[in-house]
């Protein structure tokens, strides 16, 4: 054994350090840095109103001969009727893929590709989007294609059939990966099955979607008053405004109020839920409960508290214990996301081999209890604050990220001075407040625990650590088994 000791000493010990320069400080805390002041830019300084009612944020950047235009559209999956689940998604993709009223899809695609212009469109849960990225010398041709696509999509029948075939093929495989099962069931457990955010397309809903319905959907939501533009790149602002006016100015907007995102009307049922997926050796777990709105004045204190608990990657407690102490997971942590339209969620998550799922769940419950009952250390809060404040410049680092941030803040109606006051508000949070929000907003008694994996192996646990059992948190009701649904109808087999 002495050999190894020598080897270690030779490699890690004194010989390498001999040349250490005298003036290198012993610990990085002794390094001195020039101060850095950062004032976040204000969106209002880059905001312009087009004559057709659209809002645009323009940020110049002449480093590269490229222009990027992103449009956020006031629409989303929340407006589609439940029996038409998939309509928003298909409409979003087919605006780009289905050609235009003037051009067949392949002709449109060839023109875009020859121009090396990247054009895109899509509709997500609470917003739609469209984008153009092209060389600045090609902006006229690029913008013409972009407007043609946005304003007069062709919704080609063959392309729709292809998109449906692709979508149905993916629906058919929706029980394949534990990750997608976990995501789907978590939404259902937290939001209830009738809220749009947990809604699932089925074979019947997809097959029923017609060209006409897509065209109507497009006409109802795609017009300039519903657009927020984020434009960045190699242009002069006045010139770009004139181009946008010319391209979009004669596109009238009907007087229709923007749609309101519906709130879920659902109280999650605490307990332990288990989905059996045979043949995998790792269980995926999410655990949590409902959270807060971004308008809640406590949301920054909550964010710092969560950063200490599990949101701060390697400097947070859950990662430290589940991953580095115990080696139970590659990724383990928590999120406390405030909601824009309705209350957000608190979620802790990890993936661990079946045998150690219960042990990792136990650790997370322990950490939640600990942060609720014991004050955090000053250095933990300092790290969390530094992480939040010092990351602010990164958010505004490039022209594209500035324009995008302004547009997103405008779309979600974030208070105009939010980022200007952000650092000050973060700095003001105290250790006492961290404990107060931990007690108020972390609610162990409301925890929903979802595990997806080999149920038998997960329940059996680790023979070396028999004290950890998933049943511990199931309460009187016992563990609730969730079967896999029929992938095409989403009908769940009875008990």
């Amino acid at each position: 054994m002495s050999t190894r000791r020598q080897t270690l000493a030779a490699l890690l010990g004194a010989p390498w350090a001999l040349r250490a320069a005298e003036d290198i400080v012993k610990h990085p805390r002794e390094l001195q840095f020039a101060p850095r002041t950062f004032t976040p830019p204000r969106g209002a300084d880059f905001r312009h109103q087009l004559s057709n009612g659209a809002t645009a944020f323009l940020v110049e950047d002449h480093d590269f001969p490229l222009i990027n235009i992103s449009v956020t559209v006031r629409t989303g999956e929340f407006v589609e009727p439940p029996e038409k689940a998939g309509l928003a998604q298909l409409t979003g993709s087919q605006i780009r893929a289905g050609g235009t009223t003037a051009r067949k899809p392949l002709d449109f695609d060839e023109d875009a590709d020859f121009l090396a212009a990247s054009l895109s469109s899509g509709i997500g849960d609470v917003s739609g989007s469209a984008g153009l990225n092209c060389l600045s010398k090609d902006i006229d041709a690029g913008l013409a294609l972009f407007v043609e696509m946005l304003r007069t999509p062709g919704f080609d029948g063959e392309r729709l059939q292809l998109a449906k075939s692709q979508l149905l093929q993916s629906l058919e495989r929706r029980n394949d990966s534990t990750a997608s099962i976990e995501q789907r069931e978590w939404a259902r457990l937290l939001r209830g099955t009738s809220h749009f955010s947990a809604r699932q397309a089925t074979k019947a809903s997809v097959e029923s979607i017609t060209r006409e319905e897509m065209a109507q959907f497009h006409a109802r939501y795609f017009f300039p008053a519903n657009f927020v533009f984020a434009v960045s790149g190699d242009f002069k602002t006045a010139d770009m405004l004139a181009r946008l006016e010319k391209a979009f100015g004669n596109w009238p907007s009907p007087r229709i109020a923007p749609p309101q995102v519906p709130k879920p009307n659902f109280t999650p049922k605490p307990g332990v839920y288990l989905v059996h997926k045979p043949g995998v050796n790792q269980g995926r777990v999410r655990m949590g409960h409902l959270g807060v709105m971004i308008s809640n004045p406590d949301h920054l204190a909550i964010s710092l508290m969560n950063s200490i608990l599990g949101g701060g990657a390697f400097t947070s407690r859950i990662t430290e214990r589940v991953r580095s102490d115990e080696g139970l997971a590659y990724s383990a942590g928590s999120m406390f996301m405030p909601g824009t339209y309705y209350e957000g969620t608190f979620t802790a998550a990890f993936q661990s081999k079946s045998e150690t799922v219960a042990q990792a769940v136990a650790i997370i419950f322990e950490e939640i209890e600990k942060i609720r009952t014991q004050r955090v250390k000053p250095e933990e809060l300092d790290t969390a604050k530094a992480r939040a404040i010092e990351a602010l410049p990164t958010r505004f680092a490039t022209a594209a990220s500035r324009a995008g941030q302004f547009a997103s803040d405008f779309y979600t109606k974030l208070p105009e001075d939010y980022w200007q006051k952000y650092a000050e508000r973060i700095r003001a949070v105290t250790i006492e407040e961290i404990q107060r929000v931990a007690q108020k907003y972390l609610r162990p008694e409301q925890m929903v625990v979802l595990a997806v994996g080999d149920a038998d192996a997960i329940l059996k646990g680790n023979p070396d650590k028999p004290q950890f059992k998933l049943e511990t948190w199931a309460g009187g009701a016992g563990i609730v088994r969730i079967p896999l649904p029929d992938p095409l109808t989403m009908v769940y087999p009875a008990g």
Partner: protein
Amino acid sequence: MGALAAWAQQVPVREVTLDNGMKFLFVQRKGAPNIAAGWVAKVGSVHERPGITGTAHLFEHMMFKGTRTIGSRNIEEDLRINVQLDQVKAELRKEEQELARRLRLGLIANAKDPAVRSERHRQLLAEFDKLNARQKELLVKNEFDRIYTSAGASGLNAGTAHDFTIYFIQVPANKLELWFWMESDRLLNPVFREFYSERDVVHEERRLRVDSTPTGKQREEFDAMFWKSSPYGWPVIGWPSDLEGITREEATAFFGTYYAPNNLTACLVGDFDEEQAVAWAKKYFGRLRRGAREPEPVRTVEEAQHGERRLTAYAETVPTVVIRYHTVADGHKDDYPLSVLAYLLSGRTGRLYKSLVLEQQLANSASAEQNTYKYEGFFQLSAVAKPGRTLEAVEQALYQEIEKLQKELAPERELQKIKNQLAASKFRRLQSDFFLMQQLLVAEASRGWQSINTDPPLLDAVTAEDVRRVARQYFPPEGRNVLHLAPKAGGGPRGTGGGL
């Protein structure tokens, strides 16, 4: 065109090499609030051997565990416990080897069952746990991360591939010296603490990325079939039995060979004083001692293939065909026409989509890529069959597209379209400082960072004749490696069939 338009034709890199062989690449981007900083060790899974597969990647994890200064309250005691842990682990290994022998002979069914352990085995485990607990008391947990995070640095991470291991972060522009301090310290004074629990973390990473995904195991099987003699055949993350067996001693030896400064290149992209950076490079990294000898290039080359190979694997996924051919290494003169050939086949207006998806309606998606490593390369075609179509029909249609390229020259306009896209992408991929830093380091690990400037004109010079020539040369029937991923039921009440 902007002031830096010309810049993008030639990324202006200043290269500085220290006396110990460590190289630095500096790129100025005025006004950026952060500096994208990273370094690459020219080592990856290709430098491993059976028994220690996964070491390069495990090593990447260990580099975050601290140093003699960072991560422990009592370094002497910490190092003493490390030695004791290794001693106990060596004894444990004997017990495990005995269990493995008994498993091999069928005397036990499960070597991990606590019931089959000897009394000595149990004592050793208890001792091991006790030592770990003692070391834990001395740890300043994740201090390496904490120092950077508290300073406002973000995105601290690393990645391991077949040919390289890359470490990167974004540091606030005013705190560049912190990066020099931290990175030189972890190269100069590393301590691989928490070695054995981190090995478990890597094993969980393997379960996450390979074992518990619908096609991870099958794709690993295909890789193992495709490479006969080359070390590209084993997964970067390593084989499970190797992950469970790698010792700290092996990891330390690996470090000594491959993390010497003459095998490292660092890169900074951002707004900083170049002379100051050079001075810091010398002051901090100049302390590292050049390795006793240069790491040797990989010796084993891929032996020629002498017949078509096929793998039919059943997986919970869409019906998929993958066809691979051995081609050339990164930077070979034929790498450029093969890349153009792949672009001709791929994308929304590529030949595969037009033919297999739109016209013949055989597939729901299809693509091609020329994929190169430092020592070898391959060309891959893949497609997802449309329901009701057979994998055989899709496979034949893929061959037909190659045959067309062997017979007819690609039209000029089609080629021009590809070159227009390459020209635009040349700018697009330089926009992000962070991405540029990574690209320079990855290029450096293969042929040298200069390829980021020298490759675009070589791609632009590819002719239709070049494409036809490589189409004729690299796709012989006996060079095929074919994977059929045939769907099996994905669970739930209905067995879901698919394309077969």
